[in-house]
Protein backbone atom coordinates (compact mmCIF):
# COMPACT_ATOMS: atom_id res chain seq x y z
CA UNK A 1 0.00 0.00 0.00
CA UNK A 2 1.27 3.48 -0.83
CA UNK A 3 1.06 4.93 2.65
CA UNK A 4 4.39 6.67 3.29
CA UNK A 5 5.05 10.31 2.45
CA UNK A 6 8.74 11.24 2.41
CA UNK A 7 9.57 14.70 3.70
CA UNK A 8 12.93 15.00 2.04
CA UNK A 9 15.56 17.71 2.28
CA UNK A 10 19.20 18.51 2.66
CA UNK A 11 19.68 19.34 6.39
CA UNK A 12 18.57 22.77 7.64
CA UNK A 13 16.10 23.40 4.86
CA UNK A 14 12.77 23.70 6.66
CA UNK A 15 11.89 20.02 7.12
CA UNK A 16 11.32 20.21 10.89
CA UNK A 17 9.46 23.49 10.54
CA UNK A 18 7.09 21.84 8.06
CA UNK A 19 6.58 18.80 10.33
CA UNK A 20 5.51 21.17 13.11
CA UNK A 21 3.12 22.89 10.71
CA UNK A 22 1.70 19.53 9.61
CA UNK A 23 1.22 18.30 13.19
CA UNK A 24 -0.62 21.51 14.09
CA UNK A 25 -2.71 21.36 10.91
CA UNK A 26 -3.71 17.72 11.24
CA UNK A 27 -4.60 18.05 14.91
CA UNK A 28 -6.49 21.31 14.24
CA UNK A 29 -4.66 22.65 17.24
CA UNK A 30 -5.67 26.00 18.72
CA UNK A 31 -2.38 26.39 20.58
CA UNK A 32 1.15 25.50 19.42
CA UNK A 33 1.81 21.79 19.80
CA UNK A 34 4.93 20.65 21.62
CA UNK A 35 7.89 19.03 19.85
CA UNK A 36 6.75 15.66 21.21
CA UNK A 37 4.00 15.71 18.58
CA UNK A 38 6.53 15.29 15.79
CA UNK A 39 8.90 12.99 17.63
CA UNK A 40 6.71 9.99 16.90
CA UNK A 41 7.03 10.66 13.16
CA UNK A 42 10.67 9.72 13.24
CA UNK A 43 13.38 10.17 10.70
CA UNK A 44 13.75 7.44 8.07
CA UNK A 45 17.29 6.74 9.26
CA UNK A 46 16.19 5.80 12.78
CA UNK A 47 18.47 2.96 13.89
CA UNK A 48 16.05 1.70 16.54
CA UNK A 49 13.32 1.24 13.91
CA UNK A 50 15.85 -0.62 11.78
CA UNK A 51 16.83 -3.05 14.52
CA UNK A 52 13.20 -3.51 15.60
CA UNK A 53 12.00 -4.41 12.11
CA UNK A 54 15.05 -6.04 10.51
CA UNK A 55 16.33 -7.81 13.63
CA UNK A 56 19.98 -6.86 13.07
CA UNK A 57 22.20 -4.35 14.83
CA UNK A 58 22.88 -1.76 12.10
CA UNK A 59 26.19 -0.79 13.70
CA UNK A 60 27.49 -4.35 13.37
CA UNK A 61 26.69 -4.33 9.66
CA UNK A 62 28.78 -2.41 7.15
CA UNK A 63 26.82 0.63 6.06
CA UNK A 64 26.48 -0.63 2.49
CA UNK A 65 24.98 -3.79 4.01
CA UNK A 66 22.50 -1.71 6.01
CA UNK A 67 21.27 -0.20 2.75
CA UNK A 68 20.46 -3.70 1.46
CA UNK A 69 17.86 -4.03 4.24
CA UNK A 70 16.52 -0.48 4.27
CA UNK A 71 13.89 -0.98 1.54
CA UNK A 72 12.46 -3.86 3.57
CA UNK A 73 12.51 -1.77 6.74
CA UNK A 74 10.12 0.63 5.01
CA UNK A 75 8.01 -2.23 3.68
CA UNK A 76 7.67 -3.48 7.25
CA UNK A 77 6.73 -0.01 8.53
CA UNK A 78 4.22 0.34 5.71
CA UNK A 79 2.63 -3.02 6.58
CA UNK A 80 2.33 -2.00 10.23
CA UNK A 81 0.58 1.28 9.46
CA UNK A 82 -1.56 -0.32 6.75
CA UNK A 83 -3.52 -2.09 9.46
CA UNK A 84 -4.16 1.26 11.15
CA UNK A 85 -5.15 2.80 7.81
CA UNK A 86 -2.97 5.86 8.29
CA UNK A 87 -0.42 7.73 6.20
CA UNK A 88 3.06 7.96 7.73
CA UNK A 89 5.16 11.05 7.21
CA UNK A 90 8.87 10.24 7.31
CA UNK A 91 11.53 12.89 7.45
CA UNK A 92 14.61 12.01 5.44
CA UNK A 93 17.91 13.68 4.69
CA UNK A 94 19.01 10.92 2.32
CA UNK A 95 19.63 11.72 -1.29
CA UNK A 96 17.53 9.48 -3.52
CA UNK A 97 19.87 6.54 -4.06
CA UNK A 98 19.88 2.83 -4.83
CA UNK A 99 21.57 0.17 -2.73
CA UNK A 100 24.23 -2.30 -3.88
CA UNK A 101 21.55 -4.52 -5.41
CA UNK A 102 20.25 -1.62 -7.50
CA UNK A 103 17.11 -1.27 -5.37
CA UNK A 104 16.00 2.27 -4.41
CA UNK A 105 16.14 2.85 -0.65
CA UNK A 106 12.64 4.32 -0.82
CA UNK A 107 10.41 1.75 -2.53
CA UNK A 108 7.96 3.07 -5.07
CA UNK A 109 5.18 0.64 -4.18
CA UNK A 110 4.80 1.94 -0.60
CA UNK A 111 5.50 5.62 -1.34
CA UNK A 112 2.47 7.87 -1.67
CA UNK A 113 4.60 10.85 -2.67
CA UNK A 114 7.39 13.13 -1.43
CA UNK A 115 7.75 16.78 -0.53
CA UNK A 116 11.25 18.11 -1.10
CA UNK A 117 12.33 21.24 0.78
CA UNK A 118 15.03 23.24 -0.93
CA UNK A 119 16.87 26.20 0.54
CA UNK A 120 19.57 28.53 -0.73
CA UNK A 121 22.78 26.52 -0.17
CA UNK A 122 24.55 29.64 1.08
CA UNK A 123 22.10 29.91 3.98
CA UNK A 124 22.10 26.12 4.41
CA UNK A 125 25.85 26.31 4.86
CA UNK A 126 25.85 28.78 7.76
CA UNK A 127 22.84 27.16 9.40
CA UNK A 128 24.41 23.71 9.13
CA UNK A 129 27.72 24.98 10.52
CA UNK A 130 25.82 26.25 13.56
CA UNK A 131 23.81 23.02 13.87
CA UNK A 132 26.84 20.77 13.80
CA UNK A 133 28.97 23.23 15.81
CA UNK A 134 31.44 23.00 12.95
CA UNK A 135 33.68 25.46 11.19
CA UNK A 136 32.29 27.31 8.18
CA UNK A 137 35.15 26.27 5.89
CA UNK A 138 34.59 22.59 6.69
CA UNK A 139 30.88 22.98 6.03
CA UNK A 140 31.56 24.60 2.66
CA UNK A 141 33.67 21.56 1.74
CA UNK A 142 30.93 19.27 3.03
CA UNK A 143 28.29 20.88 0.80
CA UNK A 144 30.49 20.51 -2.26
CA UNK A 145 31.69 16.98 -1.59
CA UNK A 146 30.05 14.23 -3.66
CA UNK A 147 30.83 11.62 -0.98
CA UNK A 148 29.29 13.50 1.96
CA UNK A 149 27.13 11.51 4.30
CA UNK A 150 25.64 11.80 7.77
CA UNK A 151 25.86 9.41 10.74
CA UNK A 152 26.19 5.63 10.35
CA UNK A 153 29.19 5.20 12.59
CA UNK A 154 28.90 3.66 16.04
CA UNK A 155 25.54 4.84 17.32
CA UNK A 156 22.74 7.27 16.60
CA UNK A 157 21.28 7.15 13.11
CA UNK A 158 21.84 5.03 10.04
CA UNK A 159 24.16 6.44 7.40
CA UNK A 160 22.47 8.92 5.10
CA UNK A 161 24.20 9.54 1.79
CA UNK A 162 23.89 13.24 0.95
CA UNK A 163 26.37 13.78 -1.89
CA UNK A 164 26.83 17.49 -2.72
CA UNK A 165 24.00 19.97 -2.20
CA UNK A 166 23.24 20.14 -5.93
CA UNK A 167 23.21 16.39 -6.43
CA UNK A 168 21.05 15.92 -3.35
CA UNK A 169 18.43 18.12 -5.00
CA UNK A 170 18.97 16.56 -8.41
CA UNK A 171 18.78 12.99 -7.09
CA UNK A 172 15.18 13.60 -6.03
CA UNK A 173 14.43 15.62 -9.14
CA UNK A 174 15.78 13.10 -11.62
CA UNK A 175 14.07 10.00 -10.29
CA UNK A 176 10.70 9.05 -11.69
CA UNK A 177 9.51 6.46 -9.15
CA UNK A 178 8.00 8.84 -6.59
CA UNK A 179 6.01 12.00 -7.32
CA UNK A 180 7.77 14.94 -5.69
CA UNK A 181 6.51 18.42 -4.86
CA UNK A 182 9.42 20.88 -4.54
CA UNK A 183 9.07 23.68 -2.02
CA UNK A 184 11.46 26.55 -1.46
CA UNK A 185 12.22 27.44 2.16
CA UNK A 186 12.22 31.10 1.14
CA UNK A 187 8.64 30.79 -0.16
CA UNK A 188 7.54 29.15 3.09
CA UNK A 189 8.86 32.26 4.82
CA UNK A 190 7.76 34.96 2.35
CA UNK A 191 4.36 33.68 1.21
CA UNK A 192 3.38 31.07 3.79
CA UNK A 193 -0.34 30.82 3.10
CA UNK A 194 0.16 30.10 -0.58
CA UNK A 195 3.14 27.78 -0.07
CA UNK A 196 1.79 25.72 2.83
CA UNK A 197 -1.59 25.66 1.10
CA UNK A 198 -0.06 24.14 -2.02
CA UNK A 199 1.58 21.42 0.06
CA UNK A 200 -1.70 20.66 1.80
CA UNK A 201 -3.38 20.28 -1.59
CA UNK A 202 -0.52 18.18 -2.97
CA UNK A 203 -0.75 15.81 0.00
CA UNK A 204 -4.46 15.37 -0.63
CA UNK A 205 -5.39 16.71 2.78
CA UNK A 206 -8.62 18.59 3.26
CA UNK A 207 -7.95 22.27 2.45
CA UNK A 208 -9.04 24.64 5.21
CA UNK A 209 -7.60 28.14 4.91
CA UNK A 210 -8.44 29.08 8.49
CA UNK A 211 -6.65 26.02 9.79
CA UNK A 212 -3.66 26.65 7.54
CA UNK A 213 -3.34 30.20 8.91
CA UNK A 214 -3.61 28.90 12.47
CA UNK A 215 -1.02 26.14 11.87
CA UNK A 216 1.35 28.69 10.31
CA UNK A 217 1.09 30.85 13.43
CA UNK A 218 1.49 27.81 15.71
CA UNK A 219 4.65 26.73 13.91
CA UNK A 220 6.09 30.21 13.52
CA UNK A 221 9.88 30.30 13.82
CA UNK A 222 9.81 32.52 16.93
CA UNK A 223 7.36 30.15 18.59
CA UNK A 224 9.60 27.16 17.84
CA UNK A 225 12.64 29.09 19.12
CA UNK A 226 10.79 29.93 22.32
CA UNK A 227 9.69 26.30 22.79
CA UNK A 228 13.27 25.13 22.32
CA UNK A 229 14.52 27.60 24.92
CA UNK A 230 11.87 26.43 27.37
CA UNK A 231 12.02 22.68 26.95
CA UNK A 232 14.84 21.80 24.55
CA UNK A 233 14.54 19.87 21.30
CA UNK A 234 15.59 16.25 20.82
CA UNK A 235 16.98 16.71 17.30
CA UNK A 236 19.47 19.35 18.41
CA UNK A 237 23.05 18.15 18.63
CA UNK A 238 24.48 18.34 22.14
CA UNK A 239 27.26 20.79 21.20
CA UNK A 240 24.93 23.06 19.24
CA UNK A 241 23.26 25.81 21.27
CA UNK A 242 20.04 26.17 19.29
CA UNK A 243 18.39 23.97 16.63
CA UNK A 244 16.13 26.89 15.68
CA UNK A 245 18.87 29.43 15.24
CA UNK A 246 18.02 32.35 12.92
CA UNK A 247 15.97 30.98 10.04
CA UNK A 248 16.59 34.14 8.06
CA UNK A 249 16.93 34.60 4.31
CA UNK A 250 20.35 35.89 3.26
CA UNK A 251 21.93 35.26 6.66
CA UNK A 252 24.98 33.92 4.86
CA UNK A 253 26.18 37.45 4.09
CA UNK A 254 27.14 37.90 7.74
CA UNK A 255 29.17 34.68 7.90
CA UNK A 256 30.57 33.63 4.51
CA UNK A 257 33.57 35.26 2.86
CA UNK A 258 33.32 36.31 -0.80
CA UNK A 259 35.60 33.40 -1.66
CA UNK A 260 33.35 30.91 0.12
CA UNK A 261 30.26 32.35 -1.59
CA UNK A 262 31.98 31.99 -4.97
CA UNK A 263 33.00 28.39 -4.22
CA UNK A 264 29.41 27.39 -3.43
CA UNK A 265 27.90 29.35 -6.31
CA UNK A 266 30.34 28.04 -8.91
CA UNK A 267 29.83 24.42 -7.92
CA UNK A 268 26.03 24.61 -7.64
CA UNK A 269 25.35 27.25 -10.31
CA UNK A 270 22.81 25.42 -12.49
CA UNK A 271 20.74 24.08 -9.60
CA UNK A 272 20.81 27.44 -7.81
CA UNK A 273 19.59 29.08 -11.00
CA UNK A 274 16.91 26.46 -11.48
CA UNK A 275 15.49 27.25 -8.03
CA UNK A 276 15.77 31.02 -8.37
CA UNK A 277 18.77 31.71 -6.16
CA UNK A 278 20.60 33.08 -9.20
CA UNK A 279 18.78 35.21 -11.78
CA UNK A 280 19.08 35.31 -15.57
CA UNK A 281 21.88 37.87 -15.30
CA UNK A 282 23.82 35.37 -13.21
CA UNK A 283 23.42 37.45 -10.04
CA UNK A 284 22.50 36.14 -6.61
CA UNK A 285 18.88 37.01 -5.88
CA UNK A 286 19.42 37.30 -2.11
Amino acid at each position, binding site marked *: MKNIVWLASYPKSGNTWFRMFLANYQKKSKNPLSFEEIESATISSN*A*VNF*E*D*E*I*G*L*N*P*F*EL*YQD*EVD*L*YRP*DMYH*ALSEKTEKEGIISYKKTHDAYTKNGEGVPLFPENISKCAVYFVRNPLDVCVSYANHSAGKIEKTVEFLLNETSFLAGK*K*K*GQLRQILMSWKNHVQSWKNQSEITVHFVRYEDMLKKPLETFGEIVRFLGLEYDEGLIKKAIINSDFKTLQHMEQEK*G*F*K*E*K*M*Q*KCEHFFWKGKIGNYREYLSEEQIQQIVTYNYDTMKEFGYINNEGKLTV
Partner: protein
Amino acid sequence: MNFSILSDTINVKYEGNKIESSDSYIYTRPHFKIKEDDFFLDIKNVARYRVQGGQTILVDPYENTDKESVKLFLEGSALGALLHQRGILPFHSSSFLYKDKGIMVCGDSGAGKSSLTAAFFQQGASFINDDITPVSISDPEITIIPVKTQMKLWDDSLNKLNIGSNNLLRIRPKLNKFYLPMDKNISEHRLDQIFILSIHNKDEFMAIELKGIDKYNVLRNQIYRKVYLRGMPEIQKKYFKQLFLLAKNIPVIRVTRPNICEIDDTMRFIEKKIIL
Protein backbone atom coordinates in the same frame (compact mmCIF):
# COMPACT_ATOMS: atom_id res chain seq x y z
CA MET B 1 30.69 -29.07 15.79
CA ASN B 2 29.39 -28.34 19.24
CA PHE B 3 28.76 -24.81 20.35
CA SER B 4 29.22 -24.33 24.04
CA ILE B 5 27.50 -21.06 24.61
CA LEU B 6 24.93 -22.01 27.19
CA SER B 7 25.46 -24.45 30.05
CA ASP B 8 24.47 -27.30 27.77
CA THR B 9 25.87 -27.96 24.34
CA ILE B 10 24.21 -26.79 21.16
CA ASN B 11 24.67 -28.77 18.03
CA VAL B 12 26.07 -26.44 15.38
CA LYS B 13 26.53 -27.95 11.94
CA TYR B 14 28.35 -26.17 9.16
CA GLU B 15 26.51 -27.26 6.06
CA GLY B 16 28.36 -27.44 2.80
CA ASN B 17 25.17 -27.30 0.82
CA LYS B 18 22.73 -24.49 0.91
CA ILE B 19 20.35 -24.58 3.81
CA GLU B 20 16.78 -24.71 2.65
CA SER B 21 14.02 -23.03 4.54
CA SER B 22 10.77 -24.92 4.81
CA ASP B 23 7.39 -23.37 4.08
CA SER B 24 4.59 -22.73 6.58
CA TYR B 25 6.40 -20.05 8.52
CA ILE B 26 4.16 -17.71 10.48
CA TYR B 27 6.13 -14.49 9.91
CA THR B 28 8.41 -13.89 6.98
CA ARG B 29 10.57 -11.12 5.65
CA PRO B 30 12.94 -11.37 2.70
CA HIS B 31 15.89 -12.23 4.97
CA PHE B 32 14.24 -14.22 7.76
CA LYS B 33 11.37 -16.61 8.32
CA ILE B 34 10.06 -17.81 11.63
CA LYS B 35 7.61 -20.10 13.31
CA GLU B 36 7.49 -21.51 16.83
CA ASP B 37 10.32 -24.05 16.51
CA ASP B 38 12.03 -23.12 13.26
CA PHE B 39 13.95 -20.01 12.28
CA PHE B 40 15.75 -19.19 9.05
CA LEU B 41 18.05 -16.21 8.61
CA ASP B 42 19.95 -15.08 5.54
CA ILE B 43 22.66 -12.50 6.22
CA LYS B 44 23.66 -11.41 2.76
CA ASN B 45 27.28 -12.20 1.92
CA VAL B 46 27.89 -13.70 5.37
CA ALA B 47 25.88 -16.88 6.04
CA ARG B 48 22.50 -18.53 6.22
CA TYR B 49 21.42 -19.88 9.60
CA ARG B 50 18.65 -22.27 10.50
CA VAL B 51 17.75 -22.75 14.16
CA GLN B 52 15.50 -25.66 15.07
CA GLY B 53 13.82 -26.91 18.20
CA GLY B 54 15.98 -24.88 20.56
CA GLN B 55 18.76 -27.42 19.99
CA THR B 56 20.34 -27.22 16.57
CA ILE B 57 21.84 -24.42 14.54
CA LEU B 58 22.75 -25.08 10.91
CA VAL B 59 25.20 -22.63 9.40
CA ASP B 60 25.88 -22.21 5.69
CA PRO B 61 28.57 -19.56 5.11
CA TYR B 62 28.61 -17.69 1.80
CA GLU B 63 31.71 -18.08 -0.33
CA ASN B 64 34.40 -15.50 0.38
CA THR B 65 32.93 -14.61 3.75
CA ASP B 66 35.06 -14.37 6.87
CA LYS B 67 34.74 -16.53 9.96
CA GLU B 68 34.48 -13.53 12.32
CA SER B 69 31.29 -12.31 10.64
CA VAL B 70 29.81 -15.84 10.62
CA LYS B 71 30.51 -16.12 14.36
CA LEU B 72 29.10 -12.66 15.12
CA PHE B 73 25.63 -13.41 13.77
CA LEU B 74 25.72 -16.95 15.19
CA GLU B 75 26.29 -15.52 18.66
CA GLY B 76 23.79 -12.73 18.04
CA SER B 77 20.58 -13.18 16.07
CA ALA B 78 20.83 -17.01 15.78
CA LEU B 79 21.44 -17.37 19.52
CA GLY B 80 18.54 -15.00 20.15
CA ALA B 81 16.24 -17.23 18.09
CA LEU B 82 17.47 -20.33 19.93
CA LEU B 83 16.73 -18.72 23.31
CA HIS B 84 13.25 -17.74 22.12
CA GLN B 85 12.65 -21.32 21.00
CA ARG B 86 13.58 -22.50 24.49
CA GLY B 87 11.26 -19.92 26.01
CA ILE B 88 14.09 -18.28 27.94
CA LEU B 89 13.51 -14.52 27.78
CA PRO B 90 16.56 -12.87 26.21
CA PHE B 91 16.96 -9.17 26.88
CA HIS B 92 18.93 -6.70 24.79
CA SER B 93 21.16 -6.02 27.73
CA SER B 94 24.49 -6.48 29.41
CA SER B 95 24.74 -7.79 32.96
CA PHE B 96 27.18 -7.92 35.84
CA LEU B 97 27.44 -8.70 39.50
CA TYR B 98 28.31 -5.70 41.66
CA LYS B 99 28.64 -6.02 45.44
CA ASP B 100 26.66 -9.25 45.21
CA LYS B 101 23.81 -7.59 43.29
CA GLY B 102 22.80 -8.97 39.91
CA ILE B 103 22.44 -5.94 37.63
CA MET B 104 21.07 -5.87 34.11
CA VAL B 105 21.54 -2.84 31.84
CA CYS B 106 19.14 -2.71 28.90
CA GLY B 107 19.12 -0.26 26.03
CA ASP B 108 19.17 0.25 22.30
CA SER B 109 22.33 -0.49 20.33
CA GLY B 110 24.67 2.44 20.91
CA ALA B 111 23.22 3.41 24.30
CA GLY B 112 26.46 2.44 26.05
CA LYS B 113 25.57 -0.86 27.75
CA SER B 114 28.89 -2.56 27.05
CA SER B 115 31.08 0.42 27.96
CA LEU B 116 29.20 0.84 31.21
CA THR B 117 29.56 -2.85 32.04
CA ALA B 118 33.28 -2.71 31.28
CA ALA B 119 33.59 0.34 33.56
CA PHE B 120 31.87 -1.55 36.40
CA PHE B 121 34.20 -4.48 35.71
CA GLN B 122 37.15 -2.14 36.27
CA GLN B 123 35.55 -1.20 39.59
CA GLY B 124 35.52 -4.81 40.70
CA ALA B 125 32.22 -6.05 39.29
CA SER B 126 32.05 -9.56 37.86
CA PHE B 127 31.10 -9.62 34.19
CA ILE B 128 28.15 -11.83 33.27
CA ASN B 129 26.88 -11.01 29.77
CA ASP B 130 27.25 -8.49 26.99
CA ASP B 131 24.49 -7.51 24.56
CA ILE B 132 22.22 -10.50 25.28
CA THR B 133 21.13 -11.48 28.77
CA PRO B 134 18.76 -14.45 29.09
CA VAL B 135 16.62 -14.32 32.21
CA SER B 136 14.92 -17.32 33.73
CA ILE B 137 11.70 -16.26 35.41
CA SER B 138 9.70 -18.52 37.68
CA ASP B 139 8.01 -17.15 40.76
CA PRO B 140 9.82 -16.32 43.02
CA GLU B 141 13.16 -17.05 41.33
CA ILE B 142 14.39 -14.56 38.74
CA THR B 143 17.82 -15.50 37.49
CA ILE B 144 20.39 -14.16 35.05
CA ILE B 145 21.76 -16.96 32.87
CA PRO B 146 25.36 -16.50 31.73
CA VAL B 147 26.12 -17.13 28.06
CA LYS B 148 29.64 -17.80 26.94
CA THR B 149 29.98 -14.84 24.64
CA GLN B 150 32.54 -12.07 24.95
CA MET B 151 32.29 -8.36 25.50
CA LYS B 152 32.36 -6.21 22.34
CA LEU B 153 33.68 -2.65 22.53
CA TRP B 154 34.37 0.13 20.02
CA ASP B 155 37.88 1.56 19.81
CA ASP B 156 36.89 4.88 21.39
CA SER B 157 35.33 3.12 24.39
CA LEU B 158 38.48 1.04 24.81
CA ASN B 159 40.51 4.26 24.74
CA LYS B 160 38.34 5.87 27.37
CA LEU B 161 38.75 2.78 29.54
CA ASN B 162 42.54 2.86 28.96
CA ILE B 163 42.54 -0.51 27.23
CA GLY B 164 44.76 -0.98 24.19
CA SER B 165 43.25 -2.67 21.15
CA ASN B 166 46.49 -3.95 19.57
CA ASN B 167 46.08 -7.54 20.69
CA LEU B 168 42.31 -7.71 20.49
CA LEU B 169 40.31 -9.45 17.78
CA ARG B 170 37.91 -7.42 15.65
CA ILE B 171 34.30 -8.58 15.61
CA ARG B 172 34.34 -8.12 11.80
CA PRO B 173 37.38 -7.36 9.65
CA LYS B 174 36.31 -3.83 8.70
CA LEU B 175 34.83 -2.68 12.01
CA ASN B 176 36.78 -0.98 14.80
CA LYS B 177 34.88 -2.96 17.38
CA PHE B 178 36.81 -5.56 19.33
CA TYR B 179 36.25 -8.56 21.57
CA LEU B 180 37.54 -7.84 25.05
CA PRO B 181 38.42 -11.04 26.89
CA MET B 182 37.17 -10.92 30.47
CA ASP B 183 37.25 -13.38 33.35
CA LYS B 184 33.92 -15.05 33.51
CA ASN B 185 33.44 -17.66 36.18
CA ILE B 186 29.91 -16.89 37.13
CA SER B 187 27.10 -19.35 37.25
CA GLU B 188 23.46 -18.31 37.32
CA HIS B 189 22.75 -15.42 39.65
CA ARG B 190 19.68 -13.74 41.08
CA LEU B 191 18.60 -10.60 39.18
CA ASP B 192 18.25 -7.70 41.62
CA GLN B 193 17.85 -4.57 39.56
CA ILE B 194 17.34 -3.41 35.99
CA PHE B 195 18.55 -0.16 34.42
CA ILE B 196 17.23 1.07 31.10
CA LEU B 197 19.95 3.22 29.54
CA SER B 198 19.09 5.88 26.98
CA ILE B 199 20.63 9.06 25.58
CA HIS B 200 19.50 12.66 25.25
CA ASN B 201 21.09 15.85 23.89
CA LYS B 202 21.16 17.63 27.25
CA ASP B 203 24.12 17.92 29.58
CA GLU B 204 22.65 16.33 32.69
CA PHE B 205 21.94 12.77 33.83
CA MET B 206 18.39 11.81 34.73
CA ALA B 207 16.94 8.84 36.60
CA ILE B 208 13.35 7.79 37.10
CA GLU B 209 11.97 4.63 38.65
CA LEU B 210 9.39 3.01 36.39
CA LYS B 211 6.05 1.85 37.74
CA GLY B 212 2.86 0.19 36.58
CA ILE B 213 2.03 -0.45 32.94
CA ASP B 214 4.86 1.82 31.80
CA LYS B 215 7.30 -0.52 33.54
CA TYR B 216 5.79 -3.57 31.83
CA ASN B 217 5.83 -1.93 28.40
CA VAL B 218 9.39 -0.68 28.75
CA LEU B 219 10.56 -4.16 29.79
CA ARG B 220 8.74 -5.73 26.87
CA ASN B 221 10.48 -3.33 24.57
CA GLN B 222 13.88 -4.55 25.79
CA ILE B 223 13.36 -8.13 24.56
CA TYR B 224 16.20 -9.14 22.25
CA ARG B 225 15.02 -9.62 18.65
CA LYS B 226 11.39 -9.11 19.66
CA VAL B 227 10.47 -9.00 15.97
CA TYR B 228 10.88 -12.81 15.97
CA LEU B 229 7.94 -13.09 18.35
CA ARG B 230 5.61 -12.11 15.48
CA GLY B 231 6.14 -15.69 14.33
CA MET B 232 6.00 -17.27 17.80
CA PRO B 233 2.56 -16.66 19.30
CA GLU B 234 2.83 -19.42 21.93
CA ILE B 235 6.14 -18.11 23.25
CA GLN B 236 4.70 -14.62 23.26
CA LYS B 237 1.92 -15.80 25.57
CA LYS B 238 4.46 -17.40 27.87
CA TYR B 239 6.51 -14.20 27.94
CA PHE B 240 3.45 -12.15 28.86
CA LYS B 241 3.30 -13.94 32.22
CA GLN B 242 7.05 -13.84 32.69
CA LEU B 243 7.23 -10.11 32.02
CA PHE B 244 4.41 -9.54 34.46
CA LEU B 245 6.37 -11.39 37.18
CA LEU B 246 9.51 -9.50 36.31
CA ALA B 247 7.76 -6.13 36.49
CA LYS B 248 6.16 -7.11 39.79
CA ASN B 249 9.37 -8.20 41.48
CA ILE B 250 12.34 -6.27 40.13
CA PRO B 251 12.96 -2.50 40.42
CA VAL B 252 13.52 -0.83 37.07
CA ILE B 253 15.19 2.57 36.73
CA ARG B 254 15.39 4.50 33.48
CA VAL B 255 18.68 6.41 33.26
CA THR B 256 19.12 9.03 30.56
CA ARG B 257 22.66 10.15 29.96
CA PRO B 258 24.11 12.99 27.84
CA ASN B 259 25.03 11.90 24.32
CA ILE B 260 28.53 13.18 24.96
CA CYS B 261 29.80 12.22 28.41
CA GLU B 262 32.48 10.22 30.16
CA ILE B 263 31.84 6.51 30.73
CA ASP B 264 33.07 6.97 34.27
CA ASP B 265 30.44 9.64 34.98
CA THR B 266 27.67 7.30 33.78
CA MET B 267 29.10 4.53 35.93
CA ARG B 268 29.24 6.78 39.04
CA PHE B 269 25.69 8.01 38.43
CA ILE B 270 24.31 4.48 38.15
CA GLU B 271 26.40 3.20 41.05
CA LYS B 272 24.52 5.61 43.33
CA LYS B 273 21.21 4.18 42.16
CA ILE B 274 22.07 0.55 42.89
CA ILE B 275 20.08 -0.67 45.86
CA LEU B 276 22.63 -2.33 48.14
